[in-house]
């Protein structure tokens, strides 16, 4: 395996080991456009979000508890900026079924996919802790982003 700044390159992407309360994470190559996965249903991180920044967002999401108890985590930049190639500003990080496995994530859009809705508790937390503006909160609520 090749080494990157913090992670190790592997066939599936770049693997970041568990560190300081943050779970192990895989920056999955299937969510990178250059992977040529050809899956039009997959969302892709844009060029402004390299694997290190993706992992950093995941770390914030874990440390700041932007998730549901025992469920998945969610992410947004502060201030918000496009994360995905379809201008998605939100991200979802999937809890692995097997705890030994790393988490992985990708940009999401509640507007484009019903399953991408942000849980109310997470949205309320972002709003109450001034991570997002009222305007963005309403746009997420209206499923306009």
């Amino acid at each position, binding site marked *: 395996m090749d080494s990157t700044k913090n992670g190790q390159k592997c066939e599936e992407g770049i693997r970041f080991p568990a560190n300081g309360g943050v779970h192990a994470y895989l920056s999955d190559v299937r969510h990178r456009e250059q992977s040529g996965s050809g899956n039009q249903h997959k969302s892709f991180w844009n060029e402004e979000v390299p694997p290190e920044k993706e992992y950093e967002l995941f770390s914030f999401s874990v440390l700041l508890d932007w998730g549901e108890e025992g469920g998945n985590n969610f992410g947004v930049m502060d201030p918000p900026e496009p994360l995905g190639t379809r201008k998605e500003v939100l991200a979802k990080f999937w809890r692995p079924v097997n705890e030994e496995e790393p988490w992985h994530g990708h940009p999401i859009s*509640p*507007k484009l996919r*019903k399953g991408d809705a942000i849980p*109310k508790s997470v949205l*309320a937390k972002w709003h109450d802790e001034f991570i997002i*503006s*009222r*305007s*963005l*909160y*309403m*746009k997420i*609520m*209206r*499923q*306009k982003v």
Partner: protein
Amino acid sequence: MKAIKFFIRGDFDSAYLYRGRLILFSRFSCIAILELSDIVDKIQEKFPYTAPFIEWCFAKNEWLSNDQSRSLLKHPLLFRLFNRWLTTVQNWQPDLELTDFRVILYEAVKNCFDTVLDCVIYNGRIYFATDNSLYHIDADWLRKRVAFPPTLTKRLDTRCVSLSARYGAINASSAHDGLFSAFNEFPTTGESFREPSIIDGPSWKSDWCSYDIVNYDASFHPRLLRTTREPVSKEKTYERDKLFLTSVSEVKQPLSSFVGKESPAGANARFEDSRLVFNLNQNFYTVNSNNEIDSVKLSYPRHSNRDEPAPEPQLRANPQNALSSQKLIDEVLSTCTMPVYDGLVFETCDSVKFLSKDGIITLIDEAAVAVKTYPKSIDYQNLVTVVVEDGVWLICMVDENV
């Protein structure tokens, strides 16, 4: 074109103008109602130089939106005074507090929901879409002090993101969950409300095209839902609507499918290639990838023989339209039309702007929480309400050339 505006500080989700009142949905789940005449009186007291035209702009607004007022303002003396006044107040942006005014608070809505995502008032009834439901309240607007019933009525148990109401019907867009509609909303005594039923798939917005419903299942995918209707009985009033809807067709057709012999070349492609579509009644506007606006009109052929099925409407060229050939900008998040000036109010991620034949002007230089225009209103055709993070802007668009 000039924008005269003032700001009322507070935490609001949504704002609406109706029958001489400003209705504000507070972030803390209550409804505040302010009299526009009281607002104007207090402003004139505080800023005497705003008199007398501030009243014309916000409280007796019909003077600026009809031909009678335009001819009155063309009188040289009045025209000169009005233009001098516009110059004085064009950069005037007073910051007012809710406590500056007489406010009626309706708190029965507390704890029923977290966030009001849209509101519409039709035939005296306040409909509001929230993060978990659609509600309505029948307010008595004829009293000097608006009266409310002790409870509100829940109509739908799902998140609603946008509303439209006309012809005795209420349409509630529920994003991925579809478009819900209830007809015959004001039945004779004894009949109960009908549960809104789903009439189409995913919906972010609905609007009206003649008597038909337009469902936007994305910002560039309008579909036409044909309706049937009956005349409203004489003893009833549905605002100014003379017909009420009775049913909606099972067939939902994309606008691009209404191409016929008289349609301009490529009318269907305009819809397929556009990145944004909006409509004002039968005028449909498409915005292409170069941000150019084009307009087509959906014409309904005359239908004299009632024994035969009504002929299909057809897309026709609309060259006289003022917005056609105008250029929009990138990243438009939502649009509201203002027919009185053939204008368009649009929202970007960090501003609210106005487009007319004179070009684009910025109304608000910050991200909006909710934007509304009142194209069907008599009195508020040239007003815009913009809710922002810490308050609400009331904006009156004025054509200085009258």
